[in-house]
């Protein structure tokens, strides 16, 4: 299994963060390189078709607030993904108000759209299948699954990010995964 937290800064995090807050571009670069891949993996599903844009907006907002940030690496990732999640939600609302597709009423802000270059890069069938399946989940289930499975956050951090209780997050994640398994099942159980 691919490790969920492939990249962490670890022991040096306080120094890296402090240096970035003092204006060190090298240190900020480290934060970016550590956080961006997970951010993008998350946003590719949470904000399909706009992942790069939303990631970029997220970093702009991070830069604005960076000097005021206090906390450890866990708090840092929590903050990063809190911003990303809000941006992704805004993006979904914006798209539903001004749909790109020639559809007048998009029934659901997270409706899967025509694949763009970003998603065509993910040529793997299983990958495409699971993206579609996740997007078809109730949003509350989808987002906790994405934050845990792709952003690599733990249960408590996800609860903080989505403003819910750890227990509710766990239940939503279990239900969502179960539903995903049903959708992806070769026996064609659908629901």
């Amino acid at each position: 299994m691919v490790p969920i937290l492939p990249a962490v800064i670890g022991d040096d995090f306080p120094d890296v963060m402090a240096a970035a807050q003092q204006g060190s571009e090298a240190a900020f670069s480290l934060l970016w390189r550590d956080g961006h891949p997970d951010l993008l993996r998350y946003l590719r599903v949470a904000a399909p078709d706009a992942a790069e844009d939303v990631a970029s907006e997220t970093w702009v907002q991070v830069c604005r607030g960076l000097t005021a940030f206090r906390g450890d690496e866990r708090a840092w990732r929590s903050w990063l993904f809190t911003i990303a999640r809000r941006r992704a939600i805004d993006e979904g609302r914006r798209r539903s108000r001004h749909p790109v597709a020639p559809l007048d009423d998009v029934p659901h802000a997270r409706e899967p759209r025509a694949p763009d270059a970003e998603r065509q890069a993910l040529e793997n069938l299983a990958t495409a299948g699971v993206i579609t399946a996740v997007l078809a989940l109730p949003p509350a289930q989808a987002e906790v699954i994405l934050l845990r499975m792709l952003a690599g956050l733990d249960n408590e951090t996800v609860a903080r990010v989505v403003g819910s209780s750890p227990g509710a997050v766990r239940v939503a994640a279990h239900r969502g995964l179960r539903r995903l398994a049903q959708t992806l099942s070769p026996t064609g159980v659908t629901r």
Partner: protein
Amino acid sequence: MTGNGACEGDMPTFPSPAHGEIPPAGDPAYDAMLAGTLPPGEAPAGLALVAEAFDALRAAPVDSGMTAEANALAAFRGAVSKPAVSARPRRERHPLLASLLRAKLAAAAAAAALALGGGAVAAAYAGKLPAPVQKLAHDTIGAPKTPGAQPAPSAAPRPTVLQGHSAYGLCTAYAHLKAHGSAAQRATAFSRLAAAAGGAAQVSTYCAGVAHPGAATGGGTSGHPSGKPSTPPSPAQRTHPSGKPTATPSHAPATHPAGLPASSSS
């Protein structure tokens, strides 16, 4: 009913439901999957496809190219150059404290300069040091800025690998400050070191390979520079943007590209 199609006898603990049977919510298999601790073979059959799909999603290449990082850095520069907007009054530092900090950093710079070796200070003023060291010197002792600090493409982003005195100085200074310095000192020293090493991940490797110049012992990086800062360290003082003693407001062109970990990490 076990052993249908899966491994023979050594399929462990899980009751191994019939193909496609999906455990109910609350099953520990979900927690393991969410935590990423579910080994591939041990997913219940009904969850195997989901596990594989997320493995594929995580393994999918993430390549934003240099543009994304450059944009993020531009935003960073813009935000850093006007920090007054979000400055909060309660974090303003007393002037006396600020000057104390400045003194401490100067002492640290002196330690670093000593570790750099005799001619280093003169060389710094002459602008003849390798870029990261020159930047360190610029920030701490006010030596001229790195020559050619333009984002010119001709400045080939080769990873700067320092040898001998310079590398030893950076490593030693950081090791020392890590133990005795304030957070601000550590931050400054670390960012210089990371820039020289080509990334935070490279720092330990980088310093592990640096021997004391001219010492047969190859003494570790934990050595003490001879010029110990005279002021006592005070770990209580957290870093602070306005306490930034180097006073080098980053004008736009001061990008210092050669010092960046030039895509060599990751």
